[in-house]
């Protein structure tokens, strides 16, 4: 197991956080990744099958605290993508009635970071989750740096149990779809710009930034309007940062970036060995 000392703490306003790599940036960053096929992801429009999305102008606020899903802390690793995906998966498992499992973002990160702690592409994380599954935190400690080659074979074997189903993911196109998915009970993940104004204010609202880095969060099952501006509640992965692990963001924070990547998750795990499976 290789342990690498990390750079400056993340989550501090102004600190660098290159946690997501957009398409085409691998080469620029010198990351050697295979040309892995990106998973074919259906759109949320496909899912809705002609049903309308919510009208945010008339949407009523809601706050549906999720009990039992832990607030993660990625520490100084750039594995926000994996923390967000796992957080959404854990939430969906709970909602479906499955037992909560503690998964390891570090293991998933090892599969998608190309051996360098420079972030990862959310679509790679989805691909690996659907093909190789999720390691348990008891097999691979969550907050450690580990290379893919060092992942224990036994842990990878266990991970196969926790593969995502092919119909589990839908790509979201805009803020209204994102709120619709959150309100309907989907687990969601989304990119958000991170820059020099990212610290939340007293109401939990993160600033609109134009920073170079971006970050991946999970939807937090909440929506409000402040001064007529719709704000979505998010669950992040820096411990108790913000409102006990949550914050709010407005549309420009989420969509005001080159390549916003937002996904909705449902029916995420077949998990053939879950004790709650009907037999």
């Amino acid at each position, binding site marked *: 197991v290789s342990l690498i000392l990390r750079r400056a703490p993340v989550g501090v306003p102004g600190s660098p956080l290159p946690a997501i790599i957009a398409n085409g940036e691998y080469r620029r960053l010198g990351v050697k990744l295979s040309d892995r096929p990106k998973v074919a992801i259906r759109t949320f429009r496909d899912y809705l*099958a002609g049903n309308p999305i919510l009208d945010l102008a008339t949407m009523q606020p809601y706050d549906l605290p*999720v009990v039992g899903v832990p607030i993660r802390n990625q520490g100084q690793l750039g594995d926000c993508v994996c923390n967000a995906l796992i957080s959404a998966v854990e939430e969906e498992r709970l909602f*479906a*009635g499955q037992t909560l499992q503690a998964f390891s973002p570090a293991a998933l990160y090892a599969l998608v970071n190309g051996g360098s702690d420079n972030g990862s592409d959310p679509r790679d994380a989805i691909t690996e989750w659907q093909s190789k599954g999720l390691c348990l935190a008891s097999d691979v400690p969550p907050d450690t740096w580990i290379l893919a080659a060092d992942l224990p074979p036994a842990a990878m074997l266990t991970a196969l149990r926790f593969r995502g189903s092919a119909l589990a993911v839908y790509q979201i196109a805009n803020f209204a779809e994102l709120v619709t998915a959150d309100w309907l009970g989907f687990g969601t993940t989304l990119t958000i710009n991170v820059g020099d104004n990212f610290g939340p204010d007293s109401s939990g609202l993160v600033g609109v930034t134009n920073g170079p880095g971006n970050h991946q969060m999970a939807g937090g099952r909440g929506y409000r309007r402040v001064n007529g501006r719709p704000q979505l509640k998010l669950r992040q992965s820096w411990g108790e940062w913000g409102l006990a692990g949550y914050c709010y963001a407005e549309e420009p924070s989420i969509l005001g970036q080159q390549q916003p990547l937002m996904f909705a998750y449902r029916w995420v795990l077949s998990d053939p060995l879950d004790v709650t499976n009907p*037999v």
Partner: protein
Amino acid sequence: MKDHPRRIALAFLLSAIVGSAAGFAFRSRRPDLPLALTAGPATIVTVTGGAPAKVQWGVTPAPLRQTPVGQSLVIEGPAGTTYQVTAAVLMNGDVGLLTSSVTICPTLPAPGPVPGPLPGPGPAPVGPVPAQKVWALAVFDTSQQISLPPGQLALYKSQSVVAALAPLGVVYRHYDVNDPAVTGSVWGIAAVRLQKPALVLWTNKAIMPGFPVNLPGNEHDLVEFVTKAVQP
């Protein structure tokens, strides 16, 4: 033989029923007594001893119950009349006939909207947990979920329904119609045929009689429905 305890339980229910004076409904002395019916209330087959003015089954309102499910037999007739009531009951797919004696009581509790629960020791009794594991499986067509009634949508997103059913030995899970677990299972195919949000009770590798049904409209109704179906 497996049905025997349930028949005894229902027979006890019927024998516990007493009457009231003419013109007033009378109710079970045990408004909290749970019924173990798996396919709706019993059907009155015969009533001897005269023609009662009215015979019907009723459900004890939830605020007055000491257990989640309660059912009472309501008969109206002349005071002092004794009726022999024979009821047909469906239990685990098997029809049984139960007979009990009911007397219209000449002395009445004050007629009110609904009598309150009898004083009892301590907290509300909880029905025995069935030894076998039961699954309450809700199947949604999630592509239509946005058009679900608010109660059913809230049911989908609820975290408390799992905890509410766990004391009954019931595991609550929900699925999409396209989930391989649904399309590849007996219970799943049966649920999908219903073409609505459906509820299946599954135990001993078999669908419990009377299922699948339309998914109840809210969490309270779901818990009540499942409780009624599984409690002996």
